[in-house]
């Protein structure tokens, strides 16, 4: 007993104790719910059986109902589209801004940091502001677009089922640009300057330098930023809640919002947990790929 105590006080037991305290906390409040969720997705759970400790198992019935639901595939398609478009544009705009901010001019670092003001705001408030910008009749976006002659009549960004998903995506891209830019800036700063000078001496033009030097040197950073982008985009909930609530008629619904709606608005907890399981599985696969690739870089 006293050896154990001495180990905690003086030896490696101390490190183990500190690490385990946090791990136990996370296992209790993250890992356990995760496992519980998997179990629930094979059970019959509704408002009445929710509090029971023992619930009837129904096998794959919840998943079968889910796949048969007419909403399932459109919402999955929306989710894929939302993630894909968000990543592509966040990355492209973020990369462009990072390259620009890399130039030598006064206050570059400070101005670059100011972009993060958007990222630090509660996403729900960002959603409220964008809802006002998107407003059909008095929205400022329609005004700009009409002034520029890009649209003839007013666009109903949030209530037109053909557009609503793209409107939420636009707001999400806006929110994601600063984070992409900052991370890519770090990657750019790590490329040795003299490489560019040597290439410029050899007569490579700016485009060639970008294509043959910047992009290959940025490969691991880009990989990290894309994985983090997928993970963060699948966390996006507040914008859906504040902008469209998945509507009109699920036209802008995505899996992470749908899962919540099923559980908390229609009280179909079994289906909610089944959707949740599918998405959590996907997120974890992306995260494993990401962590493994960054660890690999680290050791090499």
């Amino acid at each position: 007993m006293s050896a154990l105590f001495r180990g905690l006080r003086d030896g490696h037991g101390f490190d183990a104790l500190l690490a385990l305290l946090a791990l136990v906390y996370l296992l209790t409040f993250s890992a356990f719910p995760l496992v519980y969720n998997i179990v629930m997705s094979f059970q019959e759970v509704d408002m009445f059986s929710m509090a029971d400790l023992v619930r009837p198992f129904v096998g794959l019935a919840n998943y079968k109902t889910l796949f048969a639901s007419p909403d399932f595939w459109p919402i999955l398609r929306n989710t894929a589209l939302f993630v894909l478009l968000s990543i592509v544009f966040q990355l492209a705009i973020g990369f462009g801004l990072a390259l620009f901010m890399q130039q030598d001019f006064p206050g570059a670092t400070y101005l670059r940091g100011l972009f993060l003001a958007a990222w630090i705001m509660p996403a729900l408030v960002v959603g409220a502001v964008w809802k006002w910008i998107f407003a059909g009749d008095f929205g400022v976006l329609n005004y700009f677009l009409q002034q520029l002659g890009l649209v003839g009549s007013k666009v109903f960004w949030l209530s037109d089922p053909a557009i609503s998903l793209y409107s939420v995506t636009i707001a999400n891209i806006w929110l994601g640009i600063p984070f992409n830019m900052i991370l890519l800036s770090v990657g750019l700063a790590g490329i040795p300057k003299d490489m560019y000078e040597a290439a410029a001496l050899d007569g490579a033009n700016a485009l060639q330098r970008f294509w043959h030097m910047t992009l290959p040197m940025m490969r691991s950073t880009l990989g990290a930023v894309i994985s983090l982008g997928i993970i963060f985009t699948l966390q996006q909930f507040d914008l859906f809640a504040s902008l469209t609530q998945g509507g009109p008629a699920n036209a802008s619904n995505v899996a992470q919002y749908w899962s919540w709606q099923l559980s908390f608005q229609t009280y179909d907890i079994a289906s909610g947990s089944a959707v949740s399981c599918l998405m959590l599985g996907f997120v974890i696969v992306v995260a494993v790929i990401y962590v493994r690739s960054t660890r690999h870089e680290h050791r090499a």
Partner: protein
Amino acid sequence: MKRYALLALALVFLAIYLFPLYWMYLTAFKPSSETFTYPPSFWPHDPEWNFAKVFVDKKMATYLSNSLLIAVGTTAIVALFGTGCAYALSRVRSVWMDVILFLILMMQVLPSSLMATPIFVIFNQIGLIATPRTAVVLVQAAKVLPLYIVLTRTSFMQIPKELEEAARVDGATRFGAFMRIAVPLARNGILVTSVLIFLQSFGEYVYSRSLISEEALQTATVGLMNFMGPNTTDWNGIMTYAVIYVTPILFVFVLLQRKIVSGLTAGALK
């Protein structure tokens, strides 16, 4: 000359990007009659100071104090559990520590909206739902703890081991060396990360919406959603609410901008 042209261009990009923020502040200052003019005006002709009225009418004191409570509680738990773990992970390289780090990174990526379902059911069964703000603090802490550990770990890694070893030779225990040498030296990283965690929790929405049913215990995000309603038109009031809510956040951000950016970038890519 070229440097100043680039600066001007950078300012233009920033202005375009931050236009939604300007629009929020502008709308908050416009009187409601001017809010609904088309074409819209880009400068308030007759600025109105509605803040006190919205603050009282929308019960913002209650909502904001609930948000504050949740942010303080979350930050306290995270700092308590996370600091030691970050330290241990920075000091020991072993297979076990790698496994722990991997598990922690995995738990960072779980979206709150997907975790809300099982957490609601579990908390209902064990009765935690009766103290909903505590419930939100507990799960929000679990959500942000991994980020805190990852970011703080990089601060501990920058402290040379020799300093602690010297203290140990002088008779300090591991705990003494940790508290009196390592923590004070990593102070900056710990503080900045705590501020980041605090700000994130201050804007928490999913768990508050899912676990808190009583209105008097709701947070400022949920209050804003209630205010927006399905067919709202009071954009002037909503933007005033938003301004009251985010101005302190933006103020803290501008003060700590440099440190937040460097802390974030150090942690995210390692």
